[in-house]
C-alpha cells in the first residue's frame, strides 16, 4: 500500500477511483477490513485490485449526464458541513456547482470518521477530501488528453468541462467518466494553491435554506413510515426507582397500542434510564397515555443534590487532587521576594443541551431479522452499533440512515435514544417505531455539561512576570461516562486549555484534577471543557492585571509578547502529541478584537469592557464585550466583538454564523442557564424554568475573521468559551464586583434586567 495514501485517513483505507454502472465515475475510500461487511477479506486486497462499487464509500459520483452526486459523511446540524465539504471536493475537482447534489451518507465505517463533534469536520477532511478530488480531476484530464490526443498541459478545466483551446474542442466530465475510471490511479497529485481555488474562501449560502423556509426540510422528528407507531417512555426519575402505574387506564386512551416496561441499560456511555413505555398511533395519544398511567415511583437513589455536589467540589479543591501536568517548581519559585498573588475559585453549574428538536429515533425490525434505523445523530455508527447491541445482533444486520438534526450541540453524539428506539421496536411486532422525547424528557434526562469548580492561585512579580500558576479543577467528569483505555489520565476529557494546553508561558505551574461523581450522567456540550477552563484562566488573568493595577489588554499583550510560541509535549497512551500555542497569532486576534471595540477599560460610569483570549485546538479567538450596569435596569450587554483565526477559511458565510452562534450560546449559558438536582431529580423541565438567551438578550455582535494560510482548524465551538470570562471581566470593570460563578443573573440577581 502506498504509504502516503495510507496516512491520509487511516491505514486501512485506500483512495479508489473506479467505474460504476451507467458509465459513472466513483471516487472514494475502500476499506479492506474496517467494516463488518468487508471483514471477510483475509488479506487486504492490493490497491490495484478491482473494487466493486458497493464496497466503496464514494464521496463523489460523476454521472454520464454530467451531474455530480456528493455523499456527505459528516452530520449536518446547522453548521453547514454539507456545503463546506462539498466546496472542498468540487473546488478541487473543478466541477460545476450547479450540477451538484449532496446527500447524507448512511452509517458506514467505510466512509472514515462520520462522528461530528469537537469542531473536527473541516480540520480532518481538509487533506483527504481535496486529495481525492484532485486525483479524480487528474484522471479526467488524462482521459481527455488521450481522447483528444493532445498533451495534458494544453488542456484547461472549468465547471466540469475540459477544453483544448488551440483546437477549440472540449469534453464534459460526464463523457470522460468511464474512460477516466479505467486509467491507473496517479499518485501524489498536488492539490490547488490558494490562488487556483474557485470556491474555497468565497461565501456560499446553504442550499437547504430553500427547503427550510418552505417547511419541507425533513428532520428526524418529521420522519414517517406506513404503520409507524409513536413511542414514548415515562422514565425512572431517580436511578433504581420502581414504578406503580395504571396500565388499564392508559390502554383506554384511543390510539394506544401497548404499555410495557423497558429495562435500564447501564452500559457506558448510554445510561438508559428505563421506565414505562407507551406505543400509540400518534403523538398526542402517546402523551395522553403517559398522563393516564399516573406513574408513581418507589425507592431509588433520591439523595443527590446540586448543593451537596458543590460542597464536595469546594472541599475537593482544598485537597491535593491528582496532578495531570506540571512545569518548573512552584515551591522554589515562591521564594522570590515581593510577589503579588491572586487566589480565586470559579464555579459553573450543570447545563442542558436543549437542542430545539428533542431527541428522537425511528427503528424497524424486519421479518428477515434485519433492522433499519433512521434519526438525527452526530454519530451514526455509534447509533448503528447501539441498536445492534441492544437487540443482540451483528452490526452488519443493522443499517442506520442519519437524518437532519434540529441542533446537535454535542448531545446527539450519544446514542441512548437510538438504543431506546430499538428497545421499543422489539415490542412492536415489526411495526416501525418513532421514539420521541418531550421537551420535559429532554431537560430531565439529558446527559449534562459537567458541574465544575476551579481553584486558581497565581503569582506574579510586580513588573508583571507570571511566576507561578496553580490550578485545581473539580468536575463531575465526562471521562467516567466511558470505559476509558488504560493509561488515560483522570482529567483526559476535562483539561482543554489548561495543563499542557495552558496558553501563557508560566515557568512554574501545577494542574490538578478531582473527579466528583454523580448519578446524573454527563456529556460533551458545545465548547466542552474549554468552557470552564477558559472561564477560570481568563478571569484569573484579569484579576492579576487588576492586582497589578494594569489594563487587562496591556497586561495580556505583555504576557504574550515574551515568547513567540509555547510548545509542550503531551504524553498519551497512543503516543506523544505536540501542542503549539502561537502567541503571535493569539496577539493578532486580540488586537483586532480590541481595536474594533475601541478598547477602553472603563468607558464611562456604569460601563465596562472585558476581554478573553484563548486557543482552541489550533484555532485562536478573542472575545471583547462592552456592558452597561444600571441600578434599576440591571445589566445590558452593549456589544460583543469576536475575532477568530481558524487558518484557511473555507466558507466565510458559514464561519461567521458559527462564531455568532457560538457567542450567543456562550452568552446564554453565562447569563441564564443552570441545571440543578434536587432530591435526585433535575429540577428544570422546560424553557420556562431553564432560561435561554432570547432576542432581547442579544447585543450587536461583530465578527472579525482573520485570513491565514495555515490548514483550517475548527470553528463550531470556538466562540463559546470566551464569552463568560469576557462578560465577567466587563462586569468587574463597570462595577468592581467580581462574578466568579455562572449564570451571572442567578449569582447576582441585581444584574438581571427587568422585563
Amino acid at each position, binding site marked *: 500500500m502506498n504509504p502516503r495514501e495510507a496516512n491520509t485517513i487511516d491505514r486501512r483505507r485506500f483512495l479508489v477511483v473506479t467505474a460504476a454502472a451507467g458509465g459513472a465515475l466513483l471516487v472514494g475510500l475502500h476499506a479492506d477490513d474496517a467494516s463488518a461487511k468487508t471483514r471477510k477479506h483475509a488479506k487486504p486486497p492490493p490497491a490495484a485490485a478491482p473494487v466493486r462499487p458497493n464496497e466503496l464509500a464514494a464521496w463523489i459520483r460523476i454521472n454520464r449526464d454530467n451531474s455530480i452526486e456528493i455523499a456527505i459523511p459528516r452530520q449536518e*446540524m*446547522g*453548521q*453547514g458541513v454539507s456545503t463546506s465539504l462539498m466546496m472542498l471536493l468540487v473546488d478541487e475537482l473543478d466541477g460545476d456547482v450547479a450540477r451538484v447534489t449532496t446527500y447524507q451518507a448512511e452509517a458506514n465505517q467505510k466512509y472514515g470518521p462520520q462522528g461530528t463533534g469537537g469542531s473536527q469536520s473541516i480540520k480532518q477532511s481538509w487533506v483527504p477530501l481535496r486529495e481525492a478530488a484532485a486525483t479524480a480531476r487528474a484522471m479526467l484530464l488524462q482521459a481527455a488528453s488521450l481522447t483528444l490526443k493532445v498533451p495534458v498541459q494544453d488542456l484547461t478545466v472549468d465547471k466540469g468541462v475540459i477544453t483544448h483551446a488551440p483546437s477549440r474542442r472540449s469534453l464534459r466530465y460526464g463523457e470522460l467518466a468511464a474512460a477516466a475510471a479505467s486509467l491507473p490511479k496517479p499518485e501524489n497529485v498536488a492539490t490547488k494553491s490558494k490562488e487556483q481555488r474557485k470556491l474555497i474562501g468565497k461565501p456560499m*449560502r*446553504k442550499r*437547504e*435554506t*430553500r427547503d*427550510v*423556509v*418552505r*417547511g*419541507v*426540510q*425533513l*428532520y428526524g*422528528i*418529521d420522519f414517517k413510515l406506513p404503520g409507524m407507531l*409513536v413511542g414514548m417512555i415515562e422514565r425512572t426519575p431517580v436511578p433504581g426507582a420502581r414504578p406503580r402505574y395504571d396500565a388499564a387506564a392508559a390502554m383506554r*386512551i*384511543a390510539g394506544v397500542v401497548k404499555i410495557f416496561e423497558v429495562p435500564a441499560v447501564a452500559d457506558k456511555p448510554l445510561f438508559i434510564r428505563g421506565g414505562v413505555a407507551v406505543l400509540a398511533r*400518534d*403523538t*398526542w*395519544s402517546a402523551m*395522553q397515555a403517559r398522563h393516564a398511567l399516573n406513574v408513581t415511583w418507589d425507592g431509588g437513589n433520591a439523595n443527590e443534590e446540586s448543593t451537596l455536589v458543590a460542597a464536595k467540589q469546594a472541599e475537593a479543591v482544598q485537597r491535593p487532587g491528582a496532578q495531570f501536568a506540571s512545569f518548573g517548581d512552584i515551591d522554589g519559585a515562591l521564594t522570590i521576594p515581593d510577589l503579588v498573588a491572586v487566589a480565586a475559585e470559579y464555579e459553573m453549574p450543570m447545563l442542558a443541551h*436543549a*437542542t*430545539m*428538536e*428533542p431527541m428522537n429515533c425511528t427503528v424497524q425490525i424486519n421479518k428477515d431479522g434485519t433492522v433499519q434505523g433512521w434519526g438525527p445523530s452526530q454519530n451514526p455508527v455509534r447509533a448503528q452499533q447501539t441498536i445492534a447491541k441492544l437487540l443482540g445482533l451483528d452490526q452488519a444486520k443493522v443499517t442506520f440512515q442519519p437524518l*437532519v*438534526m*434540529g*441542533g*446537535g*450541540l454535542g448531545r446527539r453524539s450519544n446514542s441512548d435514544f437510538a438504543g431506546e428506539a430499538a428497545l421499543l421496536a422489539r415490542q412492536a411486532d415489526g411495526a416501525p417505531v418513532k421514539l420521541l422525547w*418531550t*421537551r420535559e424528557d429532554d431537560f430531565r434526562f439529558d446527559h449534562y455539561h459537567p458541574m465544575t469548580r476551579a481553584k486558581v492561585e497565581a503569582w506574579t512579580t510586580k513588573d508583571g512576570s507570571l511566576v507561578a500558576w496553580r490550578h485545581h479543577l473539580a468536575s463531575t467528569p465526562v471521562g467516567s461516562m466511558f470505559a476509558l483505555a488504560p493509561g488515560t489520565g483522570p482529567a483526559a476529557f476535562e483539561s482543554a486549555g489548561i495543563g499542557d494546553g495552558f496558553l501563557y508561558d508560566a515557568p512554574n505551574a501545577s494542574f490538578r484534577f478531582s473527579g466528583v461523581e454523580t448519578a446524573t450522567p454527563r456529556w460533551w456540550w458545545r465548547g466542552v471543557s474549554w468552557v470552564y477552563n477558559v472561564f477560570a484562566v481568563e478571569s484569573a488573568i484579569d484579576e492579576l492585571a487588576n492586582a497589578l493595577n494594569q489594563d487587562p489588554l496591556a497586561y495580556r499583550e505583555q504576557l504574550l509578547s515574551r515568547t513567540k510560541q509555547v510548545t509542550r509535549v503531551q504524553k498519551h497512551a497512543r503516543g506523544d502529541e505536540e501542542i503549539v500555542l502561537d502567541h503571535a497569532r493569539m496577539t493578532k486576534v486580540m488586537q483586532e478584537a480590541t481595536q474594533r471595540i475601541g478598547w477602553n477599560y472603563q468607558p464611562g460610569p456604569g460601563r465596562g469592557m472585558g476581554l478573553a483570549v484563548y486557543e482552541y485546538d489550533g484555532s485562536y479567538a478573542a472575545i471583547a464585550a462592552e456592558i452597561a450596569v444600571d441600578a434599576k435596569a440591571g445589566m445590558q450587554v452593549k456589544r460583543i466583538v469576536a475575532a477568530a483565526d481558524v487558518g484557511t477559511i473555507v466558507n466565510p*458565510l*458559514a464561519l461567521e*454564523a458559527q462564531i*455568532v*452562534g*457560538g*457567542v*450567543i*450560546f456562550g452568552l446564554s449559558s453565562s447569563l441564564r442557564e443552570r441545571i440543578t438536582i434536587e432530591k435526585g431529580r433535575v429540577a428544570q423541565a*422546560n*424553557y*420556562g424554568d431553564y432560561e*435561554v*438567551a*432570547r*432576542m*432581547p438578550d*442579544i447585543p*450587536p*455582535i461583530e465578527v472579525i475573521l482573520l485570513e491565514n494560510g495555515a490548514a483550517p482548524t475548527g470553528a463550531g465551538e470556538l466562540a463559546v468559551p470566551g464569552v463568560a470570562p469576557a462578560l465577567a471581566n466587563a462586569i468587574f470593570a463597570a462595577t468592581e464586583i467580581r462574578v466568579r460563578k455562572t449564570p451571572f443573573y442567578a449569582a447576582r440577581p441585581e444584574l438581571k434586567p427587568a422585563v
Partner: protein
Amino acid sequence: MAIARHMVKVNGVRRTVKADGDMPLLWALRDHLNLTGSKYGCGAGLCGACTVHVDGRATRSCQVRLADTAKKTITTIEGLSKDGTHPLQKAWIEHDVPQCGYCQAGHLMQAADLLQRVKAPSDADIDEAFRGLVCRCGTQPRIKKAVLAVAKAGARK
C-alpha cells in the same frame, strides 16, 4: 376525550381530522395533515417553534385545541406562499439565516405577523415580537437583519 371529526381550514383548503378535540392543533397538523413544517419545541407555549397564523395572527399551535379551530383560518409555513417566494422567505435565503433551521418556521410566521402590523419595526419592536421564540443555534442577528431588510424594501414600494 371523544374522537370526532373536525373540519379545519388550513392553507386555503378545508380538511377533516378525525381525532380527540383536545388534541393541540400542532399535532393535528403534524400527525394527521402531514404538515410537518410547524415544529414541536416545548408543547407549552414557551419556544414559538410551532407558530402558525390563526385568522392572520401569530399563534402557538401547541396551545390551541383542535376543537377550537372549527371556524378559523389557519396558515402554516407551508402556506406562507405558494412557491417559497414570500419576501421574508426570499430574505431568509439571501441572508443565509437558518442554521439547523428547526426554529425557522416559527420565526418566519412571527415575522410575517410583525410586518403585517408594523410596517417599519424598530429594533425594540423586533426584540419584543421575538421574545417568545427560542433559537438555540443563535440565528437571531441574521433574523433581525432579514426582517429589517424586508421592512425597508416594503417601505420603498
